[in-house]
């Protein structure tokens, strides 16, 4: 049976649409979009007073499977994603074993098909074992389904290796995603280096450790004409560099996380390990620069860097806790409330950063847009719904979220993947 979504405010940044339309879906595709479509013979969902957006894509997620199923699995991560309004996620390769070969990529895709909740796009490692030395078989990996390459968490330090990866990626035409961190500068650091790290006596991670690598990547990308995507940008200096690169039409794109937009280093006064993340929560100045960059269109996408860790792993001394914050179930509401309702960006731009742009960056042709023939992945939002972030209600396996107790306005209320309603859960 066909699904008809009626009376929704359809916003499609790809075509610039923002009007009340009906959408007809059949066999996983959008087959018609019109102001009035006859409801008979169709299953009808009335989306009056709701916003219908192209399915949201989180291009930076750690699903932890294979290897760390106590933190998250492909299944629980998928449930968390659709609950948070996402129809697709790209998952990072720092699993165990590392996703540096077709076997692991195929395993992830197989698991994802088995649960059939959401589109999962594996990101494969740039180098074997994330060791930063030998390139993986990139073309083979793309054939198996890899959508991008990244050594997230263990970024490539050797600039020659990065150069080769960028050159080679042109054959596959998928982006290289870099977690920018000079590991020599950041060694043993646990929070942003600055006044507050000195105040709290914690070892700092200087902004320079990120900026140096952002600059390196930009220079390499310009020189070798390759696509580079800067993951979770966090400092004012990085923004300045990316702004400069974009002015020069260098093929650089970037993403930002909700936590870097909303939280700052001073909060670590509590030594709450749920605030320990890499890149670290930066200063107020950095946060302001990120918000300005969003307004200016310098940042292309939102991404959560959903990084689940168990309660016990986080319930330790700050130095001993692993880095990471989960974000799939909170990102959309957080940014609806703090960016859209606070008039920092338009709803149109919000949707493009969650959907249209990530689809473009990852080269997902039939996603990130609402048009006849596009995949029927839709995220339906209620802009006025009041929610309370309560980690006890999370479907993710982990609870390492610093936003517990926040009251927010606006939430995803229905997620449709391939024409099927996957959230609310039955």
């Amino acid at each position, binding site marked *: 049976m066909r699904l008809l979504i009626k009376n929704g405010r359809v916003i499609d940044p790809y075509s610039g649409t923002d009007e009340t339309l009906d959408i007809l879906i059949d066999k996983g595709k959008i087959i018609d979009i019109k102001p009035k479509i006859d409801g008979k013979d169709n299953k009808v969902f009335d989306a009056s007073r709701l916003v219908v957006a192209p399915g949201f894509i989180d291009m930076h997620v750690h699903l932890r499977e294979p290897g760390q199923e106590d933190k998250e699995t492909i299944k629980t991560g998928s449930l968390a994603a659709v609950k948070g309004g996402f129809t697709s996620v790209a998952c990072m390769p720092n699993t165990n074993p590392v996703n540096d070969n077709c076997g692991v990529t195929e395993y992830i895709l197989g698991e994802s098909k088995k649960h059939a909740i959401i589109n999962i796009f594996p990101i494969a490692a740039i180098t074997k074992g994330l060791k930063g030395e030998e390139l993986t078989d990139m073309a083979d990996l793309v054939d198996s389904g890899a959508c991008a390459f990244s050594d997230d968490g263990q970024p490539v330090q050797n600039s020659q290796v990065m150069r080769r990866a960028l050159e080679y990626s042109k054959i596959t035409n998928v982006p290289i995603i870099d977690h920018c961190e000079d590991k020599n500068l950041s060694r043993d650091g646990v929070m942003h280096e600055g*006044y507050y790290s*000195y105040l709290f*006596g914690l*070892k700092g991670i200087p902004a320079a450790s990120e900026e140096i690598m952002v600059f390196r990547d930009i220079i390499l990308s310009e020189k070798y004409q390759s696509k580079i995507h800067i993951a979770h940008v966090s400092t004012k200096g990085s923004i300045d560099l990316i702004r400069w690169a974009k002015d020069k039409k260098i093929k650089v794109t970037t993403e930002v996380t909700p936590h870097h937009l909303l939280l700052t280093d001073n909060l670590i006064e509590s030594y709450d390990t749920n605030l320990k993340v890499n890149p670290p929560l930066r200063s107020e100045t950095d946060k302001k620069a990120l918000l300005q960059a969003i307004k200016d269109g310098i940042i292309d996408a939102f991404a959560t860097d959903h990084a689940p860790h168990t309660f*016990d792993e986080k*319930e*330790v*001394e*700050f*130095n001993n806790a692993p880095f990471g914050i989960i974000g799939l179930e909170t990102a959309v509401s957080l940014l609806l409330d703090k960016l859209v309702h606070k008039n920092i960006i338009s709803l149109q731009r919000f949707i493009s950063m969650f959907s249209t742009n990530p689809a473009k960056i990852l080269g997902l042709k039939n996603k990130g847009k609402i048009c006849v023939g596009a995949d029927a992945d839709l995220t339906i939002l209620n802009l006025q719904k009041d929610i309370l972030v309560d980690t006890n209600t999370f479907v993710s396996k982990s609870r390492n979220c610093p936003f517990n107790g926040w009251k927010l306005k606006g939430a995803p209320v229905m997620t449709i993947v391939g024409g099927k309603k996957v959230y609310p859960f039955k």
Partner: protein
Amino acid sequence: MSFKHKHLLGIQALSVSDILTIFETAESFLEISAREVKKVPTLRGKTIVNLFFELSTRTRSSFELAAKRLSADIINFGKQTSSVSKGESLKDTVLNLEAMNTDAIIVRHSDAGAPHFISTFCRSHIINAGDGAHEHPTQALLDAFTIKQEKAKFKNLKVVIVGDILHSRVARSNIFLLSKMGAKVVCVGPPAFLPIEFQQFGTQIDYNLDRAIEGADVIMMLRIQLERQQKNSFPSIREYRNIYGLTEERFRKAKKDAIIMHPGPINRGVEISSDLADSLKSMILKQVENGVAVRMAILYLLLGGKDRETSD
């Protein structure tokens, strides 16, 4: 009188009046330490644990004596004696100790914030005896108490702190405390040990000891923690001593009645010349003596009276 803290985690949480209360109380305890019977029954029946994850003789014994002079029962617990070496988490270690009905836990830990973390799940009073490069509140209190004895007031005193400021919890706690009390604090050390952000704590920073020491009332030398240095923070001990060591010649540039302090243990001939360390200007042993009285005051103020709900 009101000292309404449940824990002593750092100097930052203390008000000027809290600090004066601690000093006034310590004053009374000095007298007890001078008695023939150096013991009062005040904390009889209280159980205190010295939980030291880092080696320490001075601070640990000072707390131990302080507790004993107040008639509390105190046991020592270290990395070697705990199950931490068997992989037990800090939380489990502390919960196991607390199950034995402890009233206060004195914590020394190499990680900044460990005492704060413990205070989030613990019933006992937590006293920070040094956490990583963060704070060492009782050391700062005994330092300031010693300065008060010698100089009577803090207002406009020039206190020069010399050494590895960045990694020093003693420096941090002293900066917070002395600035609160109105002293003028100048930090001196090699740039790698002295980020400019320290100015935001209300201190001056200077890389030149000869210049900074002029007109100083108090010179506080920090131990160069040879064991903790990252490579290349400074080229060599020899060079460090030449630029930042306290010698007689340098000391003459300070005020005539200037005093020298050091939290110990000292590296003779590195940060301070042996003669100066033993001179009358040196408060090093006085600091140790005052340490017991100040720690008695802390234990008394935290453990005396009914358990307060107010935490900090």
